[in-house]
């Protein structure tokens, strides 16, 4: 067993891992960044489309360009040690155990850990879609990896279940590669992802979006032969001949490792409960990126990861002092809030991230303590598929009381 020692271990070399490792490294900590794939970049390597970096860097980039921007900076720092093709299997008493071909088993003793493992996709099995179990059923991200990394085409006639961003982006990708994309089925009355993707991925190419629809049966014993689509409002069903089904039905933060070490998870997000430094309930263990909450924009992942990286370094240098903790709760019309706690005192009121339960228009975000309401912001539109970031108000932080964040407005 190879044994090494460091200050911070970052688990995951995607955008969250890259940014948190970079920040921790820039602040002078010794960092070991562990990535299971053969190169850094994580999911960005397969996101060959544009939409990255506009907010953070001022230029619109593709995923690989965004990744490389950070990778270049990171590998130039000598205090960041990158372990590629290395899978973390366990963590015990602040020792991170991984395996790779070259070192065999590697044990990294550390003071702080940043969890940046990203998420996995919800599967057909988990949905319990009736029918056969043929080849030709892919989750959208899996199909994206096949096309954009392996150079392999999943099929010729495609139907996509779920109008999340990945589903819509794959609709366009498959269309451009010459497949027939018969439609995107969405069970809710509104699309799951960004509006811009509905336009530039579906409307641009006349790919129909069927809202209030789902797949009620899959046909085909060995390879997909068709699906039965169902209108959930009218209960009407119709058959579609396809050889491929893509599923874009939800992302699940990948917290198996986190659970192993006793990190408390928030059932609303599927990710760890954290404070404004992104520290979990375990001292010195931080979380950022999709493992903490499923993000829409990588720019926010990076910002959040900077916070976690800095948090890890401050933890090691014992710079923080925590006198008291207050909870931030998701109130009316709010699906979840991150962070779920605040370690006080704080100098500057931090940002919180949340999503509305359903689409709203002309809405207001309120922070409540002890019956008093403070307006945090107003929005013309608030959609579940578009995370909102808003700053808390000073007045909410002066007491020891828990804060409740709620949204009032008109349902869209």
């Amino acid at each position, binding site marked *: *067993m190879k044994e090494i020692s460091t200050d911070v271990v970052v688990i995951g070399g995607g955008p969250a891992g890259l940014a948190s490792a970079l920040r921790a490294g820039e602040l002078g900590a010794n960092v070991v960044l562990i990535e*299971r794939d053969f190169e850094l970049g994580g999911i960005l390597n397969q996101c060959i489309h544009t939409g990255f970096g506009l907010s953070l860097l001022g230029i619109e980039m593709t995923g690989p360009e965004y990744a490389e921007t950070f990778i270049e900076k990171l590998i130039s720092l000598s205090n960041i040690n990158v372990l590629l*093709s290395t*899978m973390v*299997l366990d963590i015990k008493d602040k020792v991170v*155990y991984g*395996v*790779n*071909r*070259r*070192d*065999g*088993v590697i044990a990294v003793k550390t003071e702080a850990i940043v969890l940046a493992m990203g998420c*996995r*996709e919800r*599967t*057909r*099995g*988990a949905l*319990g879609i*009736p*029918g*056969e*179990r*043929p*080849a*030709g059923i*892919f*989750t959208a*991200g*899996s199909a994206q*990896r*096949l*096309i954009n*990394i*392996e*150079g*392999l*085409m*999943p*099929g*010729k006639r495609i139907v996509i279940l779920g109008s999340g961003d990945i589903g819509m982006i794959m609709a366009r990708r498959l269309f451009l*590669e010459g497949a027939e994309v018969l439609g995107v089925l969405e069970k809710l009355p509104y699309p799951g992802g960004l509006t811009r993707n509905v336009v530039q991925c579906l409307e641009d190419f006349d790919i129909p979006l069927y809202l209030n629809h789902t797949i*009620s*049966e899959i046909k085909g*014993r*060995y*390879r997909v032969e068709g699906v039965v689509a169902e209108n959930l409002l009218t209960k009407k069903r119709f058959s579609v001949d396809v050889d491929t089904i893509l599923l874009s039905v939800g992302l699940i933060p990948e917290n198996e490792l986190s659970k192993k070490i006793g990190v408390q998870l928030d059932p609303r997000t599927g990710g760890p409960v954290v404070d404004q430094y992104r520290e979990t309930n375990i001292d010195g263990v931080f979380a950022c990126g999709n493992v903490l909450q499923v993000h829409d924009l990588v720019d926010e992942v990076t910002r959040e990861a900077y916070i976690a990286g800095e948090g890890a370094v401050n933890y090691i240098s014992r710079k923080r002092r925590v006198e008291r903790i207050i909870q931030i709760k998701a109130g009316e019309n709010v699906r979840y809030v991150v962070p779920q706690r605040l370690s006080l005192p704080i100098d500057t009121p931090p940002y919180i991230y949340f999503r509305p339960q359903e689409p709203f228009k002309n809405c207001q975000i309120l922070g409540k303590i002890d019956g008093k309401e403070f307006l945090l912001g107003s929005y013309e539109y608030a959609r579940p598929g578009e995370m909102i970031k808003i700053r808390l108000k000073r007045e909410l932080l002066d007491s020891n009381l828990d804060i409740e964040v709620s949204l009032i407005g008109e349902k869209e």
Partner: protein
Amino acid sequence: MEGGSKTQSGMDKELDVLIIGGGIIGTAIARELARYKLEVALVEKEADVGWGTTKANSAIVHTGYDPKPGTLMAKLNVEGARLYPSICEELDVPYKRIGSLVLTPSEEGFKTLEQLKERGKINGVIDLEIITQDRLLELEPNISKDIKGALFVRDTAITSPVELAIAFRENAEKNGVRFILDTTVIGFEIEDRKIKLIKTDKGYLRAKWVINSAGIYSDEIARLAGDDSFTITSVKGEYALFDKEVGDIVNHVIFPLPTETSKGILVLPTVDGNLLVGPNEHITTKEDTNVTEEGLTEILSFAKREIPSLPMNMIITVFAGLRAKELKRNDFVIEPSPLVENLINVGGIQSPGLSSAPGIAIYVTEILKDKGVKLLQNPKFIPERKAIRRFANLSWEERSKLIAEDPNYGEIICRCEYVTVGEVMEAVRRGANTLDGIKFRTRAGSGRCQGGFCGPRLIPLLSQLLEVSPEEITKKGKGSKLVIGETKR
């Protein structure tokens, strides 16, 4: 040499015994016959063994208290179950004696439990105890308080049916049995009420004796030879498999009170630590392994009544299997064909088929002996077979050592189940040539992400190992291609 999954060489040499059907029964018979100096081959229509009923059942080794006394089912279940521990030890296949509980929701039900206990005694199963609610809740804290008591069957065990079929195959091959896969029997040439030739879609076979263990299709195989002495009805059972997180919600196999026709919908742990719910029972066609909405609701609501805290959002997959039932006999059909001299039918192997497999194999061997087949012991017979070493189950020291010997064990390809490239390569060496073949030998793809991560990585890896282009890699043979080709030509 590895078992011939694709080789057709030597198909014209006359065999002593040809086994039709490579499920748990066919492979068990193959391995049993491998003990003797006989030329034996097994022909299977799918690309791998165990892909019919064997891969979609409850995986339980019943003790044998349940079948009607005096039936073949009762005799062979008890004999088979007794052989399981030693066979699983020899063949390195999981076997866990976790015990079972037959629940009664009513006071009247205790009478049925008494009857089961009596029946067990007659069949030779004696470790059966009737327990009341207090003891039941000690054993199973998550059981509904509506359950009044249970029959505690200590020796019920769970195993891994496809792994066992694979183990039987590997051991049989090692001892000289030839496996002819992806090959369908389409007819026979009969002369003087004897099978002279076996016609397949890939050529002809000649054998002195033919054993028909073709599962759901065993009556059709018999009919092709002119024997219509039994009929198979296909009865579907649907299942839901839950995440390992809830694998310990029960500790034993949980049965309801049995009906005339079935053991009922069960809740049980699997050998890998998942939780399984099912099966229901519905007559259907021989091709229908469709999971239905109604079926899922049926099994899940039943389970929820027994285990109220069962979380429905922890299902990782659903599937269905077909039972081969001979409804007139209500027993196994294991006998020489009354109409074809050298055909032995092994049909209607519904529950307790899996549990009886070792017993059935010996029983069939005895039929051959009675028919005059010389069974000379093969002195070179090797009974042991070692499974692929599972990286996930090794200690850190063992892992270190393994990777040092072979760095392929240092690259994890299935992150849910911690399966390494080394194990995938070993599975290919042992005959896996499909994604499902890899899954059943290594567990890659059977975890909570159901192949979402490892799938795109396994396709190029298998393409490389099997030396075929990626579009030739299938999920389960027969055109179940995964990709249609490269994006760029």
